Structure formats: structure tokens, C-alpha cells
């Protein structure tokens, strides 16, 4: 009985799939971390009083959100690097760049919405005390806005995590790619894909549950 379970095609695929899961998580975290930095810059640019800065931010957001991430990653991996710069990057780097660029556009809107939602009187109180625009942003607006960004950022984490599965097209060894590699050899397609799905859910469901709780606690 125990042998039967241990020998089952479900369990057998796990060591290979775990390798993929590690990369999936790595791409998601690095991409979101960098995407948050870029997204915060674009999001604040979107709120700038300078028309040029605002326009650049809007164009960035619209272009990225208006094109499929699959096209973006192919662009980065083949189009931009090989054709344009003649430089080749590995597929993992291309994947992280793609998540970064893509998540940044959505995070920019999250940042903008959160900053915008802070009452006008907060900034006025800061400025009336003689704080510079930058200090007002840094010490008064941003800490309050950041709290409101947490739930939508968690949501973006789930979206980006799922997006990484598209990178199997450039042969990044993430979860879905490893699954495909595995069933190409064993022909256990159903079993393998079921395990792949379960591994995704193992991350996405607890994240969503935790976020809902956090949302209630932060009362935002």
C-alpha cells in the first residue's frame, strides 16, 4: 500500500516539479520587488505636476497594460536583445525583466490610487508646517498610502505568479515548464498537470486567505 503511493505517478513527479516551483517563486519575488521600485517611480510620476513626467508615466502604463505579457517576454528575449542590441541574456533574466516591467505598470496604478486616496488635508498640514514636498511625501503621505497598497500588492503577487507559467515558451525552467518536460518523458500528462495545479494553488490560496484577513485588520 505505502509502496503503491510512493511509486504513484503523482508523487514521482514531485522532485522535478519542486525544482520548477523554486524558480517560479524566485522569478515572482525578484520581479515583484524590482517591479515595486519601478512601479513606485512611475506611479509617483503619474501624479507629478510636470506634464512631461506625467505623460511618460501614462504612456508606459498604457503600453505595458495594453500588450500581452507573452509578447513582452518574447520581445525582451529575442527581439530586443538579439536583434537590437546584439546582446543575449539568459531566459531567466528575460523572465524577471518581463515580470518587473509588467508588474510595474499595474503597481504604478496601485501606488497612484493609494497616494490619491490619502486625504488632501494631510499634505496641507505637512506643507503648512514648512515641510518640503519631498518630506511631506516621505513622512506623511507615503507611510499611510503604503498601508493601503498592501492588499492590492498581494493580489498582484498572485497574478504575477501565474504569469510566470507563460515563460515556458522561452524555456525557463519554471513550474509548468518542468511539468511539461516531465510528462514528455513519462506520458503521465493528467497526473503531472494535476500536481502542477496543486502546487500553484498551494501558494495562491493561502496568499488570498491571508490577504482577506489582512484587509479586514488594516481596515482599508
Amino acid at each position, binding site marked *: 500500500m505505502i509502496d503503491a503511493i510512493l511509486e504513484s505517478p503523482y508523487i514521482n513527479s514531485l522532485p522535478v516539479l519542486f525544482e520548477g516551483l523554486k524558480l517560479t517563486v524566485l522569478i515572482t519575488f525578484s520581479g515583484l520587488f524590482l517591479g515595486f521600485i519601478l512601479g513606485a517611480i512611475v506611479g509617483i510620476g503619474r501624479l507629478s505636476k510636470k506634464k512631461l513626467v506625467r505623460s511618460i508615466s501614462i504612456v508606459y502604463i498604457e503600453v505595458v497594460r495594453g500588450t500581452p505579457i507573452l509578447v513582452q517576454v518574447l520581445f525582451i528575449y529575442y527581439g530586443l536583445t538579439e536583434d537590437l542590441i546584439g546582446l543575449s541574456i539568459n531566459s531567466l533574466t528575460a523572465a524577471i525583466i518581463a515580470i518587473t516591467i509588467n508588474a510595474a505598470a499595474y503597481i504604478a496604478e496601485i501606488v497612484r490610487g493609494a497616494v490619491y486616496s490619502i*486625504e488632501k*488635508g*494631510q499634505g*496641507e*498640514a505637512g*506643507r*503648512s*508646517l*514648512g*515641510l*518640503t514636498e519631498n*518630506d511631506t511625501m516621505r*513622512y*506623511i503621505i507615503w*507611510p*499611510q498610502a503604503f*498601508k493601503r497598497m498592501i492588499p492590492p500588492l498581494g493580489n498582484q503577487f498572485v497574478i504575477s505568479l501565474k504569469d510566470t507559467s507563460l515563460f515556458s515558451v522561452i524555456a525557463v525552467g519554471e513550474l509548468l515548464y518542468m511539468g511539461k518536460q516531465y510528462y514528455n518523458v513519462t506520458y503521465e500528462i493528467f497526473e503531472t498537470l494535476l500536481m502542477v495545479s496543486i502546487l500553484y494553488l498551494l501558494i495562491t490560496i493561502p496568499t488570498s486567505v491571508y490577504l482577506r484577513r489582512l484587509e479586514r485588520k488594516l481596515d482599508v
Partner: protein
Amino acid sequence: MITVKDLHKSFGDLEVLKGINADVKEKEVVCVIGPSGSGKSTFLRCLNLLEDITSGHVYINGEDLSDPNTNINKLRAEVGMVFQHFNLFPHKTVLENITLAPMKVKGLSKSEADDIGLALLAKVGLSEKANDYPESLSGGQKQRVAIARALAMNPKVMLFDEPTSALDPELVGEVLQVMKDLAEEGMTMIVVTHEMGFAREMGDRVIFMDEGAIQEEGDPNQIFSNPQNPRTQSFLSKIL
């Protein structure tokens, strides 16, 4: 100390201030009254450039606010402002609300700023609230903290925009008391208020505004008991 010359302010096509001239001397307490929408808040907000000035001049201690070379942040630090809705920073404790600007604008150390903050909290009677967050305070307490926060920058003049009108009636007195103490210490104050008792008792002068212009100004007793302008008469008859 403050001189306003032909101040105009428009929001798009809407002209809200139509040429204001005023002078406020050191230690003077000036109360501004007038119907809703007459431009009282806008006038006050122009005095520390929370609204930019469309045309005209505001001089504070001789420095022209509309001169691009004026250091606006430095000037603002000298003009304290108290808002109708307090605008305390909810993510900071009462003491941190007060010490933020002295530390970031004046570069005081935390302990220097804490000393100032605690002294001001004692002054407004809220020493025991130093480490509480604003949400746990009553409206009257919040406004007293907001006054202490503005005072921490050691301003030369304090602007109050209806500081008691968001408060439950039983909490108005404690805030007015703090303002009276301040006036008696010789603070220069411009107060937009509907508290006629305060204006009568503490005001050196009352300005009546309507439709973006100063319609009448003078000694509080004269304005309240013997207004000359028919608009002042009709406004006062409605509220007294």
C-alpha cells in the same frame, strides 16, 4: 507683520477673492466672519500659499509671498495653521505629530524636539496623551494637539480656519480656552470663526467678508452692536 495688497484669487473662471487689502499688526487678534462661500478659507490659505495667488501681494514680515525667490517652506514654518478638521497624522503618536516638523525642518534632535513637544502638550493640558494615537482622542483634544503641533515651529503668526466648527458643542470651550491663552501671551492671530463670543472678547478687530471682498471691518463691539454695512447687518441678524 502681514500686509495684503489687492489680493485676487480665481479657481478657473470663478473669482473667489476680488481684491483684498488688509494689515495685521504684531500681537493683533483679527477675527474673520462672513457667510459660507464668501472666501474666508481661501483668504487664509493664500496667506501661507496653500493656494497660489492669482494676482496681488502678500507680505509677511516684509517678504513677498508671490516673489519666486522667497523661500516658501521657511515662510510657512513661521506661519502656523490650524484646520477645521485637525488634519493630525493618524500614523504618528500625539508627540510624534508635534515633533516631526521641528526635527525635519529645523533639524532639532529627537530629545530637543521631545522637550518642546512635551512642554507644549503640558500647555494644552494633554501631557498624559503623548504616546497615544490621534484616533483615540476626542475632537477637542485633537484640535488642542493640532494647535500644539503648529506652535512647535515657534510661528510668528497663527491662522485658524474655523477651529471649533467640527466639534461637539461641549468640546468647543476647551479649544477656545487654549486660543485665549495664546492671544493673551501676545500671539498674532487670524481666526476665521463663527464664535461671536470669542470674537467679541478676544478680537482686536473683526473683518466681515462677503462675495470675496472685505465689506466692513472694525472694533468687535462696533461691528456687532452697530454694523454700518447692510450686508453685515443682515448676516449678523441671521446668526446672533
